[in-house]
């Protein structure tokens, strides 16, 4: 498996934090950014975009192969390989919300 620069689209596997929601993507555009991928996948996976107060939730994509969180501005073709597995992990508040 090599870097995906020479192709226009690559397949990926994307899951939520619990690992119980898993979606395969057949055509992630290599020219798009990770942030664009995450944004579109939140809708496809029916994950919430906002917290309890309506503020936008920030999700980071963790690349399992490298064990790191990707920067939203990274290009898919530069950072990812065919079949890579990503986990979407939110920064989110629990607590009393008093």
């Amino acid at each position, binding site marked *: 498996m090599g870097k995906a620069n020479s192709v226009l689209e690559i397949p990926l596997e994307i899951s939520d934090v619990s690992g119980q929601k898993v*979606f395969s993507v057949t055509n992630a555009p290599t020219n798009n950014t990770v942030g664009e991928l995450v944004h*579109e996948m939140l809708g496809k996976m029916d994950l919430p975009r906002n917290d309890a107060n309506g503020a936008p939730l920030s999700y980071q994509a963790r690349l399992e192969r490298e064990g790191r969180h990707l920067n939203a501005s990274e290009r898919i073709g530069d950072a990812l390989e065919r079949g890579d597995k990503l986990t979407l992990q*939110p*920064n*989110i508040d629990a607590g*009393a919300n008093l």
Partner: protein
Amino acid sequence: MALMFPFRFAVAMFRDDGASLGTVPVNRDWEPEYEWTRFYYQRKGELALEGNGNASVLPLWEYTLGEPYCRGYRVQIAQPGHRPVAVDFPKTNFRNIASMAASQLVAQNELREGDSYSYMVVAHPAPQEEPRPGGLTVANTSPGVPVQDASLETFMNRAQPSGVIDADDMPVFVRRQVLDEAAALTHAHEGTEVGGILIGKLWRDASAGEIFAEITAQIPAEYTLGTNVKLTFTSQTWAAADAALRLRNRGEVSLGYHHAHPVKFWCKGKEKECTPEKQKSCYLAKDFFSADGEAVMRAAFPRAYSIAIVANDTAVTDLTFSMFGNRKGITQPRGFYVLEENTSAAN
């Protein structure tokens, strides 16, 4: 496995005298009801643990007024080769939307503060949506419910109930050690919200027609930001918990999370500190789960078998625990069972 909406729902608002105040489109999260419906029938063995057909949200028409007025709605899940399964939900689940609409009407001077209003739920067929060109092509490849076989009776014989057990709830067994560790974590960080990830196993007793959960351990949440009223789980928190779960390598899955409510410190922060008597009956002292807590469940533990535990740290009693889970699409307080022994009752 997609959730389809062949109808569009709206809330029609009325003054006390019946005059129309307009209609508000319903834009709500249907996923908890869908998850509840799916898991309800999976527990009973009437729906496959994986590979279900599409689900639809359908109106239930009012008996007397008929279409387009609704008495509720139905979440129906198709099963290839079998009859669909369905759960009906009441229109009172739209009450919050009506309440928010009323607040907006007050802000627009259409209603006065304190005016009475009523609402009705209506539904109309949704227009056919043209598929959007471009975009990602995705397939839902989620795993089925990760169950193993065990005897519910064996677990029951070794457990003590805690809280009010509702027959609609999936039985949840929590090892005492998990509660002890959550208590120790809470006491070690008094005044600050701390928490952890609950892990364990889902068991199926085919003869009892039930799936149940065993919480085997908790992984302290690292890389969090905690205050006395807030606990922020960061992406690093989830990554660390996932690494710990893999390292344990015991076939466990994430089943939810726990966190502390340092209630006694909330009281101290008030201008006029509550009396111990008042604190005893305070709604924050027990079985209180905030909208933020629910948001964590929705974002990180969306399946209907997921649960949350709150450690209630009050000034008037010893530390207590409340459990919350999805019942009929709503996160509600629920009872559970405590396993005193630190070995699985499935062994």
